[in-house]
């Protein structure tokens, strides 16, 4: 059986306008578009519209959509609608879709974008964001104080789990990046120092560069992408699945239960990763220095002399602060996540971008303070 080509015709009979439907009205072989039908109706502007389905073949929902469209048009134009000899099952299905009164969404006041701008809405939003960030810090401090007084509902296993995830599991990438950064520093420095015949000092340069600047910053950037993003995705997904609501209604603070172990894990792990990165960066610089005729002994002695405990402490202090920033950026983005999969993606992006911006700003601030203090 070949499908009969669908079509329609609007004819005038003595009873009024009649919409004659012909052929198979199925989705697979699209019949004339609803737009065309409505256009014909608009042209004829009948006061009474009847349907004639005598020549109608097979049909599916697309017929029903057309009927609904015509009926709605008639309703708006004040014309009478007579389904005529429309197949009974189609009418039943049509009636089924009328069983529920259409829901009307409360119209949102659509203030013009400019008016909103003039009313200071972006400014207000930024201020609200700032307030909520302050609230986050406050809640975090409260959670921390409860932890210190032993009243926080944080599970030790969670903390250990996150330490394991953030620490040992990150060693591979931290190793790779640190060694390479050490080598890059050594190359950069040795080319310049060689011109002065001072390539012995390449050890000082690599050691100080790693310990004070590169190790804390690079580990932080790695952790922002690795762990901060993971925190945002975890909490964001929990938000979409109403897990965070459940935790709250169980009377448990998400701050203590979810945020605290994550933040603490980062704060514990970051300084260790930083020191690890210090050592590997210096090792990475060594082969480069040796290629410039610096002996291993000279390199080691130079590094030892250059780096004091104070230097190491400045780097470690930075990395602790960075840990707090990354954890806060990740957890806050996750907790504020909307309830869709897209929102989880946005939360993750926000977490990483914010963390990196904060890191660089904080690093600059640290350096200014260190410089003023003369350390």
């Amino acid at each position, binding site marked *: 059986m070949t499908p009969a080509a669908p079509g329609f015709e609007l004819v005038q009979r003595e009873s009024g306008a009649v919409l004659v439907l012909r052929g198979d009205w199925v989705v697979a072989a699209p019949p004339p578009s609803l737009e065309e039908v409505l256009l014909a109706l608009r042209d004829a502007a009948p006061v009474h519209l009847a349907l004639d389905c005598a020549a109608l073949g097979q049909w599916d929902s697309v017929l029903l*959509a057309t009927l609904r469209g015509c009926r709605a048009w008639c309703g708006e134009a004040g014309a009478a609608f007579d389904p005529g000899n429309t197949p009974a099952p189609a009418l039943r299905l049509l009636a089924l879709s009328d069983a529920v009164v259409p829901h009307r969404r409360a119209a949102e006041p659509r203030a013009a974008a400019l008016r909103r701008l003039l009313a200071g809405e972006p400014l207000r939003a930024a201020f609200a964001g700032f307030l909520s960030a302050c609230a986050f810090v406050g809640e975090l401090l409260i959670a921390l104080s409860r932890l210190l007084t032993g009243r926080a509902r944080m599970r030790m296993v969670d903390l250990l789990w996150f330490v394991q995830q953030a620490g040992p599991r990150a060693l591979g990438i931290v190793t790779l990046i640190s060694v390479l950064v050490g080598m890059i520093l050594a190359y950069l420095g040795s080319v310049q120092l060689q011109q002065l015949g001072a390539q012995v000092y390449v050890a000082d340069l690599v050691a100080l560069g790693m310990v004070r600047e590169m190790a804390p910053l690079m580990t932080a950037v790695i952790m922002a992408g690795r762990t901060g993003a993971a925190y945002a995705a975890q909490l964001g997904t929990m938000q979409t699945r109403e897990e965070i609501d459940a935790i709250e209604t169980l009377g448990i603070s998400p701050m203590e239960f979810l945020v605290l172990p994550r933040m603490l894990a980062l704060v514990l792990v970051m300084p260790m990763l930083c020191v690890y990165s210090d050592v590997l960066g210096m090792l990475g610089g060594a082969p480069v220095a040796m290629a410039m005729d610096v002996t291993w002994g000279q390199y080691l002695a130079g590094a030892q002399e250059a780096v004091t405990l104070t230097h190491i402490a400045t780097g470690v202090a930075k990395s602790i602060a960075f840990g707090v920033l990354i954890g806060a950026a990740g957890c806050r983005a996750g907790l504020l996540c909307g309830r869709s999969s897209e929102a989880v993606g946005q939360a993750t992006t926000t977490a990483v971008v914010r963390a990196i911006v904060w890191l660089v700003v904080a690093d600059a601030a640290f350096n200014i303070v260190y410089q003023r203090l003369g350390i």
Partner: protein
Amino acid sequence: MDAPREHIRVSGLEMRYGSRVIQSGLDFAVMRGDIFVIMGGSGCGKSTLLKHMIGLYEPASGEVLYNGTSYQRCDGEARAAMRQRWGITYQSGGLFSAMTLAENVALPLTQYTSLDPRSVRELVAYKLALVGLAGFEEYYPSEISGGMQKRAGLARAIALDPEILFFDEPSAGLDPVSSRLLDELILQMREALGVTVVIVTHELASIFAIASNSVYLDAETRTMLDTGDPRELLLSSPHAAVRRFLGRGAAPGVSS
């Protein structure tokens, strides 16, 4: 219609997760126009069976035939053509959360048909109205209740006027009234469009209200115990477990 009466046949199906056998020796047929219920206790493998039937999982052995053609022996293209004739609703809705309800329902229409946008819009409005969600076109799934999400999932499943509708626990999370409305809707869809319906459910009210055929999966023996009209099974199944399961709803308090 001269289409074969037997619509789906499950033949010698064995399902496993890894080496763990969930069910084996499944043999039953779903007739055209049946409302077929997969029933059984929690965790017996109902959802797993449904996922095997819709080709999400490969069976350990056995096959599922549609109109006499084995889904497992088809190539990718033939499988895709078969899938287009199915509508599937998932246990938790399965709506795309980044799209509005209208976009969700319109997706299969714009993917698989060449309908014009105006007709798509009207069709979407009709499908949403059919499941009682008229006027909710511009809502996102996260803005409506769980029961409404299920109905929206159903609207998407019926977007292409499928030949077979698969439901996993459609009434879980619905209030009794909406649940009855859904039963009513399923009956009407079958009558008007001749769809075959395969439903996983353990809601007895639903089973007796709509099922014309069923299969009972047993968790202990890991196989099907019986298949047939649940009303007849209740009276005359040789398996006590089946009668007990069905009897809980038909005569509360009487079952032993």
